[in-house]
């Protein structure tokens, strides 16, 4: 067993044991923080998977929410129609073995459907470059949303209730660990060097005999798969889906995380996901304290103005992302080890 695989197994076991011992305690006593924890996990998966496309492969996708929607609706439909038949789960409740098995299967199904969608979009559109690709993926995301609005069996504008909140810390952070593992080992493998060459110089890569389209499609499909998994986690946590929840701005949120984290730096992106999920909630908390003078309270009530200003200022002052390409982290880690 290689060292990285060992790390993966260790991390998964850790997630499982935390979930096994701490799940109920956190969920019942700190429901709010629990909610934020799950949201962080979902955002990490979305952002690290998008980073494979936008950061490592140098493409630009603005339609990640579309794949998330495919996954969310796929897993919700699966649970609605097939869980009662396969696992004997009625109205979202059953024994833990059955619900966890159901969650696993519906996550796989969600990922697979999203990956198929990713393949269908990727193969034709990845001949395009940069901005064109951005706009095609944006368009694809919008089409997905309009399609859901028109499909009555998915609830259309009424929204879709999801039976069973099976999402827990294990499934969420297990997926996080797996996602990070897959992305990192793809990028750092000999095979994965291909992604970086596509980013750094596509023409040169082609001249060296690298099939750039194959790499782009691979990145796209893997990213879509994990977006679908994130969708399934979201669906089985919030238990209610509306097409509006997967609009263009959801995609923008994920892109912002990737850019702030520093494109092509997994650890930076993970950190940015944590930060950007907590930040709005922290601002929410701040709005209720007397710590902030009344004159500035209005800024907190208009969190979106603050958010947009932060975005502009950060881009102007730290265009390489908050955490750059991750060298600062490595230095810091190295130094603390040396201490």
């Amino acid at each position, binding site marked *: 067993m290689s060292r990285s695989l060992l790390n993966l197994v260790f991390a998964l076991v850790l997630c499982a044991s935390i979930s096994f011992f701490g799940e109920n305690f956190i969920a019942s006593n700190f*429901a709010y923080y629990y909610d934020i924890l799950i949201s962080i996990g979902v955002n990490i998966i979305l952002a690290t998977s998008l980073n494979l496309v936008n950061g490592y492969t140098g493409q630009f996708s603005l339609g990640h929410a579309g794949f998330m929607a495919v996954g969310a609706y796929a897993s919700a439909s699966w649970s609605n129609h097939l869980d009662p038949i396969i696992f004997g789960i009625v109205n979202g409740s059953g024994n833990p073995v059955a619900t966890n098995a159901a969650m696993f299967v519906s996550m796989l199904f969600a990922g697979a459907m999203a990956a198929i969608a990713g393949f269908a979009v990727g193969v034709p559109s990845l001949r395009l470059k940069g901005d064109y690709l951005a706009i095609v993926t944006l368009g694809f995301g919008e089409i997905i949303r309009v399609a859901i609005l028109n499909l009555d069996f998915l609830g259309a504008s009424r929204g879709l209730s999801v039976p069973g909140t099976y999402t827990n810390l294990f499934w969420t952070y297990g997926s996080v660990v797996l996602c990070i593992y897959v992305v990192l080992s793809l990028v750092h493998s000999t095979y994965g060097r291909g992604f970086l060459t596509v980013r750094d110089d596509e023409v040169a890569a082609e001249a060296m005999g690298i099939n750039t389209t194959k790499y782009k499609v691979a990145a796209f499909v893997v990213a879509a798969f994990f977006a679908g998994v994130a969708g399934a986690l979201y669906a089985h946590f919030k238990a209610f889906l509306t097409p509006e929840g997967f609009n263009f701005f959801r995609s923008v949120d994920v892109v912002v995380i990737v850019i702030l984290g520093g494109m092509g730096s997994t650890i930076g992106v993970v950190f940015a996901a944590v930060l950007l999920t907590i930040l709005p909630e922290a601002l929410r908390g701040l709005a209720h304290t007397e710590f902030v003078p009344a004159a500035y309270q209005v800024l907190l009530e208009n969190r979106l103005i603050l958010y947009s200003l932060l975005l502009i200022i950060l881009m102007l002052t730290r265009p390489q992302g908050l955490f750059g390409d991750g060298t600062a982290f490595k230095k810091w880690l190295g130094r603390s080890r040396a201490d």
Partner: protein
Amino acid sequence: MAKPIWMRVCLGVLILLSLAPHDAHAEIKIGAVTCLTGALSTFGVSSIEGAKMAVEEINAGGATLGQSIQLIVEDNGSKAGETATIVRKFISQDKVAAILGDLTSSATMEGAPLAQAAKIPLLTPSATNVAITRIGDYIFRSCFVDPFTGKIMAKFALDHLKAHQAIVMTDVKQDYSVGLTEAIVHYFDQNGARVSNTFSYSSGDTDFRTQLTGVRTAHPDIVFLPGYYTEAALILLQARQLGIKCPFVGGEGWDSPTLVQVAGKAADGNYYTDHFSATDPDPRVQKFVQIYRAKYSTIPDALAALWYDGARLLALAVQRAGSTDGSKIRDALAATRDFDGVTGRISIDENRNAAKPGVILKIENGQPEMVQRVIP
């Protein structure tokens, strides 16, 4: 030595997080969640103004259980998924006694199951989807449901406007509009009249001439327009420009001064159903309008009135329960009979929905005038 920027950022976030509210005032807390920013904030802002006014009045009128009521307002930013987070915050952080909200049906559908699971009563003053109160016995509503509004619209059109051939224009992006459409078509079919066609549009559209050209060729007696005023105003305007003369009938979604401002003369001669009319001569309503106007310098719309009533109804139930215990508040809410609100007398029925009268308004010379009160 200068710390790397991300360390400073982490520190900042930690400080912010530690500031999360831990106030120890002996107050009964009610959590209110609505859309104060984002696409739906145009509806959400007046709702919370109504709710705040109700709580202030109740606190001024004497303390409940010796403690005043504190309304904790949270904004869902018109974003999916946020309401669930906020309801969890209400339950685990703020330890609220009850929850007021959300504004829309889809947001309420996210939060209600959590409140039900935690056995914290949740009352929505404005979410009209039938499915909401079916979630469980802690979920209440103080407005009517879509089928009721649809039914009174259709009944009024049949009985008073003598309309037998109708067209419905539905906003497919809004569950509210889709729900009303189903109810209208159902009532017309049951009562021997005919909905000859339905045209659809989506929120955010501004050009409806293509659909209206179709309406014009069909020569209906009446057009049902169960959408929000944002689009309804433009539809009325463009319909009159194209020479469509028949009356349009809408629901409470039309309630806003903007409708008449945008549609101008084209708004005249059309009808809509509502929870409340600011022109209602009832002294209670007039007093409410007067105070609201003095406070916020606008005339209250239906959402302000609904949330005012909802907040009062909930606060009074807490008062009657004599406890912050969820099950006692639930029982008090369920026992609400003939609550005297500005939107009419409200009784909570066995399905935890409100049985209350509605009003039908006609727009004339740019003013909505009450033509009829409908008692269920």
